[in-house]
């Protein structure tokens, strides 16, 4: 109880420190770099292979690049792009996908997807798999991805 006077002091110090860092030239200066978050992740799988779709947002001041992915659910995981040419479409692996600064990159049917091959077991609607994304600058991000039915209506 002898230390209880320290509590309001600590609160005051914290408030002052907050005011300081928030003051000066206006907005606080964030550390330059990407700041990534994943949302709307969903996997679809048919007969031993599947695709993972998601939205990657970057609140940071520098762009980043998705360079690979892995999952304990699949033997092989690759980042792919569906390329359209006239009436035809072709799937190709991509080395990196840009997530622009203050922007986003959406992985969706007909565009980019993360392909799961050699699934360890058949995925059912309602299952949740872990997918770890690797980026050029940011550290790896592991996402829990629910297996959804086709299509997402």
């Amino acid at each position: 109880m002898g230390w209880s006077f320290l509590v309001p002091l600590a609160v005051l110090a914290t408030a002052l420190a907050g005011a300081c860092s928030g003051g000066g030239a206006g907005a606080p200066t964030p550390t330059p770099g990407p700041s990534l978050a994943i949302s709307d992740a969903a996997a679809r799988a048919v007969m031993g292979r599947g695709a993972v779709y998601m939205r990657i947002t970057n609140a940071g001041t520098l762009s980043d690049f998705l360079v690979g992915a892995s999952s304990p659910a699949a033997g092989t995981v690759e980042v792919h792009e569906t390329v359209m040419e006239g009436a035809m479409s072709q799937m190709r692996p991509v080395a990196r996908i840009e997530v622009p600064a203050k922007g986003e990159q959406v992985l969706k049917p007909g565009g980019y997807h993360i392909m799961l091959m050699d699934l360890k077991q058949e995925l059912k609607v309602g299952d949740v798999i872990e997918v770890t994304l690797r980026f050029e600058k940011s550290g790896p991000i592991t996402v829990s991805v629910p297996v959804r039915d086709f299509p997402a209506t």
Partner: protein
Amino acid sequence: MGALNRTRSTVFLFALAVLALYLSACSSGQADAPIGHTGHEGHPDVTGKPSFVLADTSGRAFDFSRDTAGRAVLLYFGYTSCPDLCPTEMSTVTAALRQLPESKRGRVVVVFVTVDPERDTPAVLREWLDIFDPGYVGLVGSPGQVDAAGRMAFGSAWLPPQRFVYSDDPTWTRYAVSHPSVVLGYSPGGQGPFVFTHDTSVADLARDILRMLEKG
């Protein structure tokens, strides 16, 4: 003077008629809206149902134009190892058909032609299609036969399916095959093709299937 008045009233009546025509066209705009997607870069430049014969998954010869006569058709060229567009589009088709009343659904046939006959044996193709609907027709043929069928369906928008090998892993033949990104639709009387792009919604496709059926 009398003649001029007559001319004026004729012009007036003519203008009224044009206005009435214009308004009636406007009000029926929804019904006259094109079925499916138009102006697609790879829009087929041929009309009518293609005429080709390929083996179905039970080995029976399937004569596309004859065996689909009197029914609306959704025709797709794809392959079962395709994880992105093919399952997305087949599931959109499946969900759209499930929205239709039973009496209408029975008048629609779905035909899937594989562009990857090496991996898509009749058994593999059957197993894959059964995930969506056991009633879907799966067709297999040599690369030359499939190429001819595709050319008939798409005209000059068709490009021969190309293999893209994306792994040199010798234990597994990993390759992608190019294929059309759209589903083609035909009315029971063979009008079409109507083009449904991969991002067509289930509701839009269901509505347009009904409109294809109405076209006769």
